[in-house]
């Protein structure tokens, strides 16, 4: 019960901190002080207290989409184990449910963008679903590799791996999957080199352009859901790249939090040392991620 309570607490409270760590890292690289670590929390509180501006062309879809995005992100977070602890929700085949939860969130976000009738937001929705055609198979291949290695069809079992740790024969596929998943994490969470969450030029945006018309509390919910999604993908990736544990309850939770913060720093470093890719090259990057995960699967079934 303690583990479930901590899982819930971390899932709901920690995600905005990751954005703060990433921004702080980028600021340090640029020689600036940067915003406070808790800036994302302040922004969310401010947005929740503001009024909204709604386009006259929008319908209930526009209002519903942020709520659906948030709920699906939380449900996905309840299915991914943190560190060595089991996820609160786990059942055989939950990996499919997990993938389609993310797909449902994407569907509603794109629908809300189209609901505004804005050409820019429609363009962003088109880009989002196009790149999802490459990132979703990559995630599925990665999950297939983990299922094959662990012999489990539940996310908790897959990510914990077999008893005694992952076998040596799975090292090469897991390295390939880790690379592929990291690229997917950057793409799915609108990070550089795929997208820039701080950009203000509609023609170059992907995810951000879809939410141009959202404001006030709706925008706050969307930003919070995006932070949750980054947290969930991070927890997923950490099982592959850093499956460490000490055996002590509090030490393992502290280790997980430290790993998650280190991952946020790594994302900040990547964003600081890389430029955004040309839009037409994003598909090449995601195809590369798909191939990495696909090769990982082939290595296992050969």
């Amino acid at each position, binding site marked *: 019960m303690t583990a*479930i309570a901590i899982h*819930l607490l971390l*899932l*709901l409270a920690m995600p905005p901190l990751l954005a703060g760590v990433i921004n702080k890292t980028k600021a340090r690289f640029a020689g600036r002080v940067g915003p406070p670590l808790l800036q994302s929390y302040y922004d969310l509180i401010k947005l*929740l207290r*503001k*009024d*909204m*501006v*709604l*386009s*006259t*062309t*929008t319908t209930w879809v526009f*209002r519903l989409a*942020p*709520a659906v995005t*948030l*709920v699906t992100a*939380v*449900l996905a977070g*309840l299915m991914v184990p943190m560190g060595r602890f089991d996820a*609160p*929700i*786990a059942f055989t085949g939950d990996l499919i449910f997990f993938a389609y939860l993310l797909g449902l969130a994407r569907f509603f976000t794109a629908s809300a963008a*189209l609901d*505004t*009738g*804005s*050409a*820019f*937001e*429609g*363009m962003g*929705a*088109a*880009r989002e*679903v*196009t790149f999802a*055609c490459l990132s979703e198979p990559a995630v599925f291949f990665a999950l297939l590799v983990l299922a094959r290695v662990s012999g489990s069809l539940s996310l908790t079992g897959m990510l914990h791996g077999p008893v005694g740790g992952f076998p040596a024969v799975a090292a090469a596929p897991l390295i390939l999957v880790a690379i592929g998943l990291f690229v997917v994490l950057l793409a799915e969470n609108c990070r550089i080199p795929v997208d820039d969450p701080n950009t203000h030029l*509609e023609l170059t945006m992907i995810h951000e352009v879809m939410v*141009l*018309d959202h404001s*006030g*509390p*709706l925008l*706050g*919910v969307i930003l*919070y859901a995006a932070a949750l999604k980054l947290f969930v993908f991070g927890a997923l990736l950490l099982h592959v790249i850093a499956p460490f544990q000490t055996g002590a309850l509090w030490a393992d939770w502290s280790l997980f939090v430290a790993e998650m913060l280190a991952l946020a720093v790594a994302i900040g470093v990547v964003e600081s040392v890389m430029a955004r890719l040309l839009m037409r090259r994003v*598909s090449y990057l995601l195809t590369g991620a798909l191939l990495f995960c696909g090769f990982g699967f082939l290595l296992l079934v050969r």
Partner: protein
Amino acid sequence: MPVTWIILAAIVLLSVSGGPACLLSQRLGVLASGCVCLGLFPSLAAAPLESATRAWAAAPATAATSIAVLVPLGRISAMGLVMIAALAPLGWIATIALRSRAVAAASWDCGYAWPTIRMQYIGSSFGSTLVDLFGALPWPRTHTLAIYGLFPPAASFKSVVADTVFDRLVLASLRLAGRYLPILRVFQQAQMQSCVLYVLTILIVQLVWGATGVQS
């Protein structure tokens, strides 16, 4: 487990009784509450269900394995409660978001105020990036009238993306079938004696096949 029986009986009674004064929505509400109750706490229904199945199968109480052993009912309850605990604060946030004051305005237009249908993003535009990326599969056909000069008199662009499976596979196959299958009509011209001949031929073939099969 008398408490369980009482709860189940109350749900059933409340949902079917009440007469015309009881609104349909109230009955459905009671039924829905019962469903939620059973979904969250399936162990409540396990004991009555178990005794019923044992009575139906005429098995002794100790013969069959308990449902609670076969299915992790406690874990299902825990997962449901965790989900509610996680979604409750979100419901509060969503309530704030949905109830907050909204000001009506035009969509984000970047210079094109009050977009009309002609300015809006159409399905073809939405799918164009996908079509470009996977061009080999949908195989789009475009017809472009190139523009020329400083003041081009006319310009046009038309793009048709056919349904690859239906147009290029199913319809093409049916077209081929329609062209060549009539040849087979020579074997069947609605003559009864031809049908009998075919049946007889097939029977003979089967007999020979069966006989050789038995010998081998």
